[in-house]
C-alpha cells in the first residue's frame, strides 16, 4: 500500500518537476526510479523488477516515448538495485542515494543499449543521461533527508526527552 502511494506521489512529482515555473534543470529528474529503490527493502529482486517495470512504463507514458524500452530498463535496473542492496546491506541515506544512483545509471545504460540495438532515434544522449542521474540522485538525497527527519520525529528518544522536559 505504501509503495502504491509512493508510486502515485512519484507520478505527480514527475509531472510537477516539468512545469514551466520549476527550474528547468530539474525537468530531467526521474522520481519514479525511486519506487523500485524503495521496493528493494521489502521485495525479492524479482518483485523489485516488477515494480521497476511499472515505474518504467509510467516514465515512458508520461514522457511520451515509445512504451517498452524504459520499462525494460527500469525493471533490469530495479533487479540490480535489489541484489546490490542485499549484497552490501545498504541502509540509511546511503541506501537512497546509492540505490537511486544505481537505478538511474543502470536504467539509462540499458535504455541506451535497447535503443542502439533497435537503431531507433533516442530523445537524449549522454548529457541528458548525466542530467537524469544527477537530478534523480539529488531527489534521492532529499528523500533520505526527509526519512531522517521522520525517523527523528518518531524516535523514542525524542519522546522521552519531551516527557522529561515536561516534568
Amino acid at each position, binding site marked *: 500500500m505504501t509503495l502504491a502511494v509512493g508510486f502515485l506521489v512519484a507520478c505527480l512529482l514527475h509531472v510537477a518537476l*516539468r512545469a*514551466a515555473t520549476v527550474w528547468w534543470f530539474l*525537468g*530531467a529528474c526521474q522520481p519514479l526510479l525511486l519506487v523500485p529503490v524503495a521496493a528493494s527493502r521489502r521485495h525479492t529482486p524479482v518483485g523489485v523488477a516488477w515494480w521497476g517495470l511499472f515505474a518504467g512504463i509510467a516514465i515512458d507514458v508520461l514522457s*511520451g516515448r515509445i512504451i517498452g524500452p524504459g520499462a525494460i530498463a527500469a525493471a533490469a535496473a530495479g533487479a540490480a538495485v535489489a541484489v546490490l542492496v542485499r549484497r552490501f546491506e545498504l541502509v540509511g541515506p546511503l541506501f537512497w542515494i546509492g540505490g537511486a544512483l544505481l537505478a538511474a545509471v543502470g536504467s539509462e545504460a540499458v535504455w541506451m543499449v535497447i535503443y542502439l540495438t533497435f537503431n531507433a*532515434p533516442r530523445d*537524449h544522449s*549522454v548529457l541528458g543521461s548525466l542530467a*537524469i542521474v544527477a537530478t534523480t540522485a539529488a531527489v534521492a538525497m532529499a528523500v533520505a533527508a526527509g526519512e531522517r527527519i521522520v525517523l527523528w520525529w518518531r524516535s523514542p528518544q525524542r519522546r522521552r526527552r519531551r516527557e522529561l522536559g515536561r516534568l
Partner: protein
Amino acid sequence: MAAAAQARSPQGPALAVGISAVVTPVLDAVNAAGAAWEDLRVGQQDLTATVAEAKRLRAENADLKRTSQLLAAELAALRQGARLLADFPSFTDGAVLARVVAREVLSSHTLHLDKGTRDGVHTDAAVLAEGGVLGRVDRVFEHSCRVQLLSHPAAAAAAKVIGVDREALLLGGDRPSLTGIPPYTEIAVGTAVLTTGSEGIYPPGLLLGSTGDTRTSGLFTAVGVLLAVHPADVVTAIVLPAHGNER
C-alpha cells in the same frame, strides 16, 4: 443638634454643605473610574477591531502580493510575446502565440505549449522564440502541443551559413552541428546560421544560431553551432502555420 443642622452659612444649610463636601469627591472619583472603565472598554473594542482589521489587511496584502506576482509573470510573458511579434512581423498572419507550460530541456528535449488543434496548431509547424528558431511541433493535442527542440538528437533543419554558398544540414544533439559543407571551408566563429526552408518545415531566413569551431571531417566540414534560443528562458513562443502545407 437640629438647630446646628439648620444653621445657615452663605452657601446654604451647613448639613447640605457638609454632605456635599463628602459626597462630591467620592462621586468625582467614581465617575472618573467609570469614565476610565468606559474608555478601557472602548479601547479594548477598538484594539480588537484594529487587530482584526490588521489581520484582514495582512491577508489582503498577501493576496495582492500573489496577484501582483501572477500579473508580473503574465506581463513578462506578454512583453516577450509582443517582442516576438515585433521581431517577426511577417509571420503574424495565421501564427499562434503560445505559452510554455512544461519543459524537458535535457532529457527529452521537448517543450509543451498551451495551444493545440483547437487553436490551429498543426504537426510540423515551426516554432519561434525570441532570438530565432526554437524547434518544430512534433505532437499535437486538443489543448496543447509538444515541441521538439533543435537540440533533440533527431532534429534537423536545412541551413545556410552567411558567406557560404552551399546549403548545409543542421543536426541536433548535445552539440548541434552543420554538415554538408565542402571540406576545408573556412568559416569565422560567430557567423550567423539561417534556415533555407528546403526541408519544408522552417520558413527561409530565420536565425538558427551562430557558428562555433570548424573542422574537416571526411568529405565535409563539420561546423559546431551555438543555437540562438536557449529553451530554458522561453516563456512565450510563436507557432507558425505549417510551412510544408502551404506549398
